[in-house]
């Protein structure tokens, strides 16, 4: 008893270690700064800082930027950077959540048909809606509706198999629904070949420069999803023991899994609605963190939020500056730069933390 009490301090969970938390936050802050400063118009660090302080009503500070520069900073760059951060955070944490809930290291946020459904919604909007309607509002809404309907259908198909306890059934249902929606989407696309390029560029993903409207559109979904997932992060560690053992440890596995999957999926549908299908982020970010730090889900999930946000902000900077004024599809950037980085991580951590 006394021996044990002395050793109670030895019994610790490697939660968010200060080193990792600080490094992650520093990475995010640096990425945000680069994202705000990079662009065809050079605003200058000092002027941006002044303008920020002035916006925060710090007395005695006024902006030295012209009204046009102010507009570039606050109506284009800042909202775009924030949008990229939200999408990156959401896709990374959703990927990590799916990997834990389905005990499948290859699970990504698109596992349950969200991508195929959103793709169909977007394609229908591009093909059939009049030009004026589709741009700002209708496209993300159509993509969001398509993604959500696909996942609902996945759940319905999974449940009808009457083996609800089996997570693999749900994954198979997701594959089925995704195949169906992708076929439908391809058909609509072929019937309207004049929209091919627009559909294609949506599918490859990009962060739009649409000011604050898209940020406002997805913020509630992303915020709720991240709060729910982080609140349940300890439970994800328990789920990694498998359904039976989690149940015998007192977890209502079906209910918890439903809550996590709904949160991750709704958030992903919202992110996909504004940004298209950005691949690879949901797999590479959680795995890179896992390989480098070796932590469990309760630290992995918050780290995925922070590092995923920074990663996508940087990827978006490359997408919009590398061939400026043209933009490279963001999905191309994340894979082109992400893949070699991930290969390096795999190489340096072999036999390591996985």
């Amino acid at each position, binding site marked *: *008893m006394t*021996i*044990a*009490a002395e*050793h*109670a*301090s*030895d*019994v*610790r*969970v*490697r939660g968010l270690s200060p080193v990792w938390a600080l490094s992650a936050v520093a990475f995010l802050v640096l990425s945000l700064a680069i994202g705000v400063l990079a662009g065809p118009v050079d605003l200058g660090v000092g002027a941006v800082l002044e303008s920020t302080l002035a916006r925060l009503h710090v007395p005695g500070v006024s902006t030295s930027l012209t009204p046009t520069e102010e507009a570039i900073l606050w109506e284009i760059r800042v909202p775009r950077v924030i949008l990229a951060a939200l999408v990156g955070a959401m896709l990374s944490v959703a990927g990590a959540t799916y990997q834990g809930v389905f005990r499948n290291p290859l699970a990504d946020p698109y596992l349950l048909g969200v991508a195929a459904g959103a793709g169909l919604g977007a394609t229908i909007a591009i093909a059939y809606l009049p030009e004026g309607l589709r741009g700002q509002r209708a496209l993300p809404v159509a993509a969001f509706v398509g993604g959500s309907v696909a996942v609902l259908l996945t759940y319905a198909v999974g449940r009808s198999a009457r083996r609800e306890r089996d997570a693999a059934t749900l994954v198979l249902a997701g594959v089925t629904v995704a195949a169906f929606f992708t076929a439908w989407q391809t058909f609509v696309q072929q019937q309207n070949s004049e929209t091919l390029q627009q559909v294609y560029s949506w599918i490859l993903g990009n962060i739009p420069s649409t000011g604050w409207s898209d940020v406002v559109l997805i913020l509630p979904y992303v915020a709720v999803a991240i709060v729910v997932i982080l*609140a*349940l992060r*300890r*439970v994800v*560690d*328990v789920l*990694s*023991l*498998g359904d*039976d*053992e989690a*149940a*015998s*440890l*007192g*977890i*209502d596995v079906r209910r*918890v899994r439903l809550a996590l999957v709904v949160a991750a999926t709704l958030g992903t549908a919202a992110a996909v609605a504004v940004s298209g299908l950005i691949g690879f982020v949901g797999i590479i970010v959680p795995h890179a963190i*896992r390989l480098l730090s*070796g*932590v*469990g889900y309760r630290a992995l999930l918050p780290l995925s939020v922070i590092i995923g946000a920074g990663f996508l902000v940087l990827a978006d900077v490359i997408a919009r500056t590398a061939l400026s004024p043209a933009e490279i599809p963001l999905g191309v950037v994340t894979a082109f730069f992400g893949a070699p980085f991930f290969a390096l991580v795999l190489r340096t951590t072999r036999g390591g*933390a*996985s």
Partner: protein
Amino acid sequence: MIELRGVTVELGGRPVVAAVDAAVADGEWLALIGPNGAGKTTLLRAIARLVPCSGEIELAGRPVGALSRSELARLVAVVPQEPSTPPWMTVAEYVLLGRTPHLGPLAKEGARDRDAAARSLARLDLLPLADRRLGTLSGGEKQRAVVARALAQEARIVLLDEPTAALDIGHQQQAFDLLDRLREESGLTLVAAMHDLTLAAQYADRMLLLDAGRVVADGAPADVLTEVMIASHYGASIDVVPVGDRLAVVPRRSARHT
């Protein structure tokens, strides 16, 4: 403490456990024995409500279906036959997962939980390994971590499914000696599915012999472990020999046809 009345489990339309009646007293050690496929694992899973069953199961006087998952987990801990031990998890983190039923779904472990985990780590001599990852442990060390997790759960009933199948004879003995000591010290009730009849006879107060899902014998080891019983249900020819005040089961080689 544990009451089973007419417990039947059907899997794929076939009864795997059929109308089992049994009672286990507080602090008793019951060995579930029987040939492969007799329904030992399924019966344990039914008690832990991991598989749907008909009939009645009562734990501490309450029907098992009326308990919430976490109430049930505070009453019953399970040591599965093939526990999953994520290689990245440390021993301390793994044992702390045993505290899950004592925490709300959103809570994290407090001082009491770390204390309970430290106690069970100490009991299994795992304190020096607390920060080691499960992936770096030997089979015996891993098995001890699994038992430590079950103890940290602080449940009064522990169900064990072939808990020592992966261990050598020395580690088997250590594990069972330890479980026996814990039973005496903490009044645990143990129900263990066991293949090794000699080990079962060494430790269990009582044996339940299952065959094709039915109870075919229930009683003290001396009553259950007879040459006729084992021959008819296991198809094995054995000798039962006394060793000290307990029994040992010795397999007999079939007569060679020359």
